[in-house]
């Protein structure tokens, strides 16, 4: 017998792939040391958001990029994980048991809903499935607002998290009882919270990578390319599509849990809004569908643009104050216009997304 892995497709190494891997590694390293590289609160907030959204976008890539399933219910699963943890943390207090119990409840709800939507809807044409998921996500938004006793309605829920994550918590103390600093940064609860988010995000992304590189990943790509051919080879397409929909829902729910723990707040706008769905769709498309690493690049690029484009434009407007028209064009209030132009340029120059286009380029090494 010959091991299937003895001839791995990974040997198709191109310069484009090396560039993508290098970019993803750089982003990963930056996130790993983010609390020490960027000490202000806003930067750490951006870094944590990038960690969580990489998982969320990568799990969406598993659906849309690898299996060809267009779903608009991904934020619904994200929200279930977040609300599960938030409701439990509010009710039981900021303990680990609340996170475990609430998270398990949110994940269980995500599994049940994903199974029902998958079994009932994945047989129909892609457009009808997309509509079903859109309807399900809308219903969840309404429910989150209506059941205000449980969810806090439009205001959401504010709660505490385990003591370990409190900024006053000292992770390491010196002989005088003072908190130890590493590279000038106090090792306190905020650092613990960040690495809780970072390490679990890393583990979830690794899990998704393992899936797409496994034989299951090859089957998913085959299903995306031609369902009938996959069926004729002995693969029950509906079962595979439902299974992958459930896996993506579980990962999205876990990402929601992380986001809820980090924010200490959960509301419809922070986890369920349609803007978040559009964001992750754009992140996957701009990064490159069906590449997994595209999610890393897309999330980093879009998050940085969303948070810092305004600042950059403010600097640019000041620098060009004496030039006619340009300062008005670069007015920070017009940041959405420039964000739009940036996206159009990216789609024009990278039609298969940044990672997708780069991975196709370059000779074999």
């Amino acid at each position, binding site marked *: *017998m010959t091991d*299937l892995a003895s001839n791995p*497709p990974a*040997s198709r190494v191109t310069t484009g792939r090396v560039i993508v891997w290098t970019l993803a590694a750089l982003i990963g390293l930056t996130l790993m040391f983010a609390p020490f590289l960027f000490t202000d609160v806003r930067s750490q907030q951006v870094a944590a958001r990038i960690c969580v959204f990489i998982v969320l976008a990568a799990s969406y890539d598993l659906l849309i990029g690898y299996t060809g399933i267009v779903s608009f219910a991904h934020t619904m699963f994200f929200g279930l994980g977040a609300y599960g943890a938030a409701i439990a943390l509010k009710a039981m207090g900021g303990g680990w048991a609340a996170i475990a119990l609430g998270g398990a409840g949110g994940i269980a709800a995500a599994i049940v809903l994903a199974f029902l939507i998958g079994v009932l809807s994945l047989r129909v044409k892609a457009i009808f499935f997309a509509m079903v998921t859109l309807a399900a996500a809308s219903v969840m938004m309404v429910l989150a607002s209506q059941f205000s006793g449980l969810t806090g309605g439009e205001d959401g829920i504010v709660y505490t998290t385990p003591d370990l994550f409190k900024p006053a918590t000292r992770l390491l103390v010196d002989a005088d009882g003072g908190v130890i600093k590493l590279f000038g940064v106090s090792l306190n609860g905020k650092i613990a919270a960040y690495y809780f988010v970072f390490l679990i995000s890393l583990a979830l992304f690794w899990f998704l990578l393992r899936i797409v590189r496994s034989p299951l990943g*090859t089957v998913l*790509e*085959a299903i995306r390319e031609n369902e009938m*051919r996959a069926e*004729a080879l002995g693969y029950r*397409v509906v079962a595979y599509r439902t299974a992958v929909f459930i896996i993506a829902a579980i990962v999205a729910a876990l990402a929601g849990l992380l986001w809820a723990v980090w924010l200490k707040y959960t509301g419809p706008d922070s986890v369920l809004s349609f803007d978040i769905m559009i964001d992750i769709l754009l992140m996957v498309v701009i990064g490159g569908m069906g590449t997994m690493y595209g999610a890393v690049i897309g999330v980093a690029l879009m998050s940085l643009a969303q948070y810092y484009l305004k600042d950059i434009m403010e600097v640019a407007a000041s620098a060009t104050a004496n030039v006619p028209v340009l300062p008005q064009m670069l007015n920070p209030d017009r940041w959405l216009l420039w964000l739009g132009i940036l996206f159009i340029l990216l789609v024009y120059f990278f039609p298969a997304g940044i990672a997708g286009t780069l991975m196709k380029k370059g000779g074999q090494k």
Partner: protein
Amino acid sequence: MSDHILRLDDVHTDIGQYQILHGISLNVPEGGVHVLLGRNGAGKTTTLRTIMGLWRARAGAITFHHHDISNLHTSDIARLGIAYVPENMGIFGGLTVAENMRLATHSDRFDAGRLDRIYDLFPAMKTFWDRPAWALSGGQKQMLAISRAIIEKRDLILIDEPTKGLAPAIIEAMIAAFREIAQDTTILLVEQNFHFASSLGDSVAVIDDGRISHHGDMADLVADADLQNRLLSLSMNA
């Protein structure tokens, strides 16, 4: 050769509002190469797709190893041991040759003996193992499609017009490969190229307007020019 591996009894298949198969009855003996001949639009491809469950038979019965497979799901039919090589080869262009082959195995290992046999039959598969399938030539794609069908033990392989668009030299290589494969697998071959079909076939069924108009030994058809003229249109005499 006495037993039938596949049997179609009065099979009717509709595609949309059109009835394509008007009661096909066909017995495929176990072992050897069995050819389904017919002009364009006679119902050859529909017959194969109906066997695979890709089109549902409206009436009639299809049995494989004496088990009714008429209402089985396509994936279950494939798992029973029937491989299908469609006219367009059915390969996954976005995947490598290795990944295409991996899809056809349902264990986590390739059978080394079968892999060596494929390399012997089609050396190009070894050369292009890590290449994306879209980059292969037409002949190589056909070789990949057939390799995928034999990477695991199958009892029956349905092959739809494997010579279509291929160069004569590759067709000769295919004849040799099919002869070798037929030593341990039954092949039901749909073909319009009479030279190719007659070089390989043990038995032949001629299909016309969704019905079997002749069934017998290929040798008898080859020897009988009048029968050929009567059964086969001019376009068949390649």
